[in-house]
């Protein structure tokens, strides 16, 4: 799998559009909460991340820094992929 931060970010943006019912156009440079993600939406995103990349952030742990914006989350996922 040749994922990059950019390719993961794109896929996260598409998933966020689905999770939020297409109500918003997510901005990769903004925090997840500002992109319409709440705790239920975040869970859906975590499920998507595990299904798509096999990275269980619930088990591995996730910090506030990892969700500072969508790119930061993409970087955290890439780190998880490399660690696996």
């Amino acid at each position, binding site marked *: 799998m040749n994922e990059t931060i950019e390719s993961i970010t794109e896929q996260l943006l598409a998933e966020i559009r689905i999770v939020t019912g297409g*109500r918003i156009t997510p901005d990769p440079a903004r925090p997840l909460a500002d992109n319409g993600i*709440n705790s239920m939406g975040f869970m859906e995103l975590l499920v998507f991340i595990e299904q798509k990349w096999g990275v269980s952030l619930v088990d591995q742990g996730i910090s506030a820094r990892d969700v500072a914006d969508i790119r930061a989350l993409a970087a955290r996922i890439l780190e998880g992929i490399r660690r696996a």
Partner: protein
Amino acid sequence: MKQDCGEGKWLDAFDSFAAYLNRSCAHTPGRGNHFLILLEYDEAPDFRIISDFFRKLPDLPPILFGKIRRFPGLAPYRTKGRPRMVTVTEAAADETPEDYANEPLPPGVPFDCRRFPRSVAFRFSHLFFDGCGAERFLLKLFTEGVGADEPSGLLSSSHMNDWKEQRTAGTEFRKSLLSKDLPPVACLLAPGTDRNLFFTASIPAESLLARAEREAGPFMGIPFLQHRTVSALLPFLRSAGITGDIMIPMTVDRRGQEDHPADALFFNHWSMLPVRVACDPENEPPLSAFRKAFYQANAEKRPKMFRMASMSGRFVPGPVMQILENHYGPKLGGTFLFSLLEESGLTGKTVFSRPVRNLRHLPAMPPRPGLGIIFNRAGMNMNLTVSLRAGLFPEDEAKRFFCNLQAELNRNESVSQNH
């Protein structure tokens, strides 16, 4: 957007589970599973303004387009015929909001308003609204007004016509809850009939959520609050000799997800997310177990399954429900019901010429589990309501549980951070 429900078309409108809960509360003083939204003020609003508002308010557009016909035990419901207009009733109260919550709603009135010295209470039927929908309805009523063309916000779901899909969803959901292989659920036994007790507190929201993020991780406020609640409740369960898994039936709002409109008002955008955590008699389950269970329930798409499942696929009509209850006992109800409404649109708004300082939910609990832990954020406050059936605990113990929970939530750090 007005949804064309069509003449006599089935709607995924009112939830049959709500009907069951309502029926199970039929013999309580409140005669139903309704709830209060309380607007709190720093200064008493001018009551003439409130009375004038309601006197001038025309009959509201129908709660549903069409006449509601309910087939006993076989919801969903069917709409037929002309829309029914709705009258709101309003009066001064000579009691407390808690006493008011224990009264029945006037027959045929889906919501009612009472004036208190520094608050105004709205009582809603759970058959029509969930907490979030009721808040939105009030916001609309007080900001834009509700016109005759008000869209119903009902979910006319394509799933309603796919019986096979519904049955599959229901079977899966039921299996996840009622498997005989699962250990028993720790639960207090709720008395069948009695009045509801309410204990309420407001906790500074920012510091509580900052602590939740520190201890549980970002967006993990729900598992954090559930963990702290269990920590406060376990000593009482154990002193009563009650052991078993912790099962938390949690209500979730599906507005804004998939085909649920984000601005919908009515009840049928509500679902359940049961969280189950193993608990041995000696140790308190760690926070990570709540986080994992919350994640697992989402990964299994339980809220979607529950939403899709038909009455016959999910739960069953009253008499059969009684047989199931007798067989499975407390497993059906869980340890306590949990709800978190993450933000209120009404706080800070001016309603009846005064800014609303706080908004609180007071929902009555159905017999099972008979104990509800309800959080709602309103501006700077995280409001906590413990709602329970009188008799579930001795009253002094119930108060002690509430004080312990409040202390848990007001603490800067958890005593044992066992993630």
